[in-house]
């Protein structure tokens, strides 16, 4: 799914979360060397400029009374990426989205969408955006066909093309059969699919999807995930607000963790997981009992943070960069004539990352958010 996964690691670092990051265009070229009949052929697989980010939030803040729903949010989003905004309900994701969409005004700070300031050119900003809201926004007397068809009209899709696309999109979200039913007669999942259909038909430059698979069954979730990836592959930039860890992990090129209105960190899922010191775990089952020198040998790897002897022949290692270090550990043990029965690796999930940065699991954060 993550075809662009490496892209963000090329030209993004954690300083992207800082407003001070430069947006000056940089020259970028990617080279490929290929041997054909003994000759080295050089391909410029990509040549061009790294342009300014398509969205730039600068200390974006929204207060409701004394509560800062979004607190000085600074973040840059690059064209063509899926950025996951991960946080529990009440974290400030939807408020941030509504500000970007110019639905509500920021209390402080601003954001640039494309070349436009959300405060100064809201009409232009809205022309670039398409939104799938968390709660489907439709009146109960409307029908899916009316909703999607009118949305397509407002978004300027020509009549001839529109009729075909309405059908295609409603079929894609499996709502064609129910196109003339009123919203009142639709299930929560069906309403959500109609909401999603609005973004799909619009094919906006920037799609904002707020919990797109909430209330949708697992088969439907996969379909929507595929649709989002297709949209990204066709050139849309996608902001995915979610509280589903797996969804954020499999879809996002980068994930921003947001809690109590603040952006705590933003990076690729892999880098986020790697950022937890000793976050990876491997369990090594030896044929024989582990000798103290073996334990010391393992502790000698700089990536290994801790070694526990769970059983005489079973060692648990807490370490970083598991993919890189495990082959070396295996080689080292084999060279030392320490026979291995099995190795089990597990890497931290985004839940672990969330817990690492907030001190709470996402469920705990959700509960504390609901209480406050």
């Amino acid at each position, binding site marked *: 799914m993550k075809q662009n996964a490496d892209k963000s690691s090329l030209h993004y670092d954690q300083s992207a979360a800082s407003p001070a990051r430069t947006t000056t265009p940089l020259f970028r070229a990617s080279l490929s060397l290929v041997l054909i009949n003994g000759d080295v052929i050089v391909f410029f697989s990509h040549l061009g400029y790294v342009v300014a980010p398509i969205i730039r939030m600068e200390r974006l803040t929204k207060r409701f009374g004394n509560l800062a729903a979004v607190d000085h949010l600074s973040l840059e989003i690059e064209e063509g990426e899926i950025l996951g905004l991960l946080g529990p309900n009440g974290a400030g994701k939807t408020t941030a989205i509504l500000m970007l969409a110019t639905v509500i*005004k920021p209390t402080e700070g601003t954001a640039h969408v494309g070349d436009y300031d959300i405060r100064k050119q809201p009409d232009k900003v809205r022309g670039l955006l398409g939104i799938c*809201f968390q*709660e489907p926004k439709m*009146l*109960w007397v409307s029908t899916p066909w009316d909703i999607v068809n009118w*949305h397509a009209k407002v978004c300027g899709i020509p009549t001839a093309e529109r009729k075909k696309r309405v059908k295609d999109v409603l079929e894609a979200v499996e709502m064609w059969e129910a196109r003339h039913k009123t919203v009142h007669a639709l299930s929560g999942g069906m309403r959500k699919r109609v909401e999603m259909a609005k973004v799909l038909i619009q094919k906006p430059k920037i799609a904002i999807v707020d919990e797109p698979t909430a209330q949708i069954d697992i088969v439907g979730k996969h379909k929507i995930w595929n649709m989002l990836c297709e949209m990204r592959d066709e050139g849309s930039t996608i902001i995915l607000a979610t509280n589903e860890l797996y969804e954020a992990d499999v879809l996002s090129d980068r994930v921003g963790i947001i809690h109590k209105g603040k952006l705590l960190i933003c990076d690729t899922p892999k880098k986020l997981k790697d950022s937890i010191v000793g976050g990876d775990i491997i369990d090594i089952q030896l044929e024989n009992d582990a000798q103290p020198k073996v334990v010391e040998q393992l502790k000698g790897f700089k990536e290994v943070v801790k070694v526990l002897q769970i059983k005489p022949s079973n060692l648990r290692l807490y370490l970083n960069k598991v993919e890189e270090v495990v082959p070396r550990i295996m080689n080292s043990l084999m060279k030392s004539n320490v026979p291995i029965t099995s190795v089990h690796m597990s890497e931290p999930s985004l839940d672990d990352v969330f817990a690492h940065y907030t001190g709470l699991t996402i469920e705990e954060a959700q509960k504390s958010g609901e209480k406050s």
Partner: protein
Amino acid sequence: MNKILLVVERDVRLFFQYKFLIIMRAIWFVSQIALFGLIASRMISVPNVDYFRYYVAGLSIMTLYSAAIFIGFDIYEEAEHGVFEYLLSLPVSRRQLVLGRSIGGGLRSFIYVGPLIALSLYVIGTVNPLNFLVSLFALFLFAFGVSGFSITMAVTIKSSDRFDILMGVLDALIVRLSTAMYPLAIVQATNPLYGSVASLNPVTFASDLFRWGTNIITLDNPLLPLLGIIAFFSFFTFVGIIIYDRRIEGGGWQ
């Protein structure tokens, strides 16, 4: 302009989705003519006035008023269902949205009342074509004015309960303190205060002009009620737009 028309189209289509409401109101309209109008006109005697025709004309205006006021309830429902956020996120400017809604609210009520007015014309009988066209134009502006008035109320009052109560009270007062159902002279004779209010009421202006256009009454100066309707339309269309615009920008709809 195209975007305004799309907003208008949405409001018109939406109104006609409320099929049961429309059918019920149409049945109410017909029964008011066929039952109440016929029966009540036998016991009411007003000098120089055929009360049945007088009542049917007034009923058309009351129906137009209640259809035009409906846009405010739509706006409330949209706020409750979050549809407002959706509308605000569209590639449509705030001005286009507000103007479109105001026009849509008036137009849909006019479309709805059109067949009912045709029915009432059949009952009323002869019309003066020129006067009738002028009165139709006045009714058009009246519908837009009521729509703007309803939007203004909907975005000014934050509680839906309060809005329902206020609109109920206003509906009762505005319609009853007008000449929709009885001539001004009788209202005046009942209570001079009632008469003063009724003489400045836009429902009175609309009712009188429609009766003038359908030859039910004569007016010394039809320009006065016409100017009254233009003033009502201008005030509530433009004030409604300004207030709606400010509420939207300030997040007052939340």
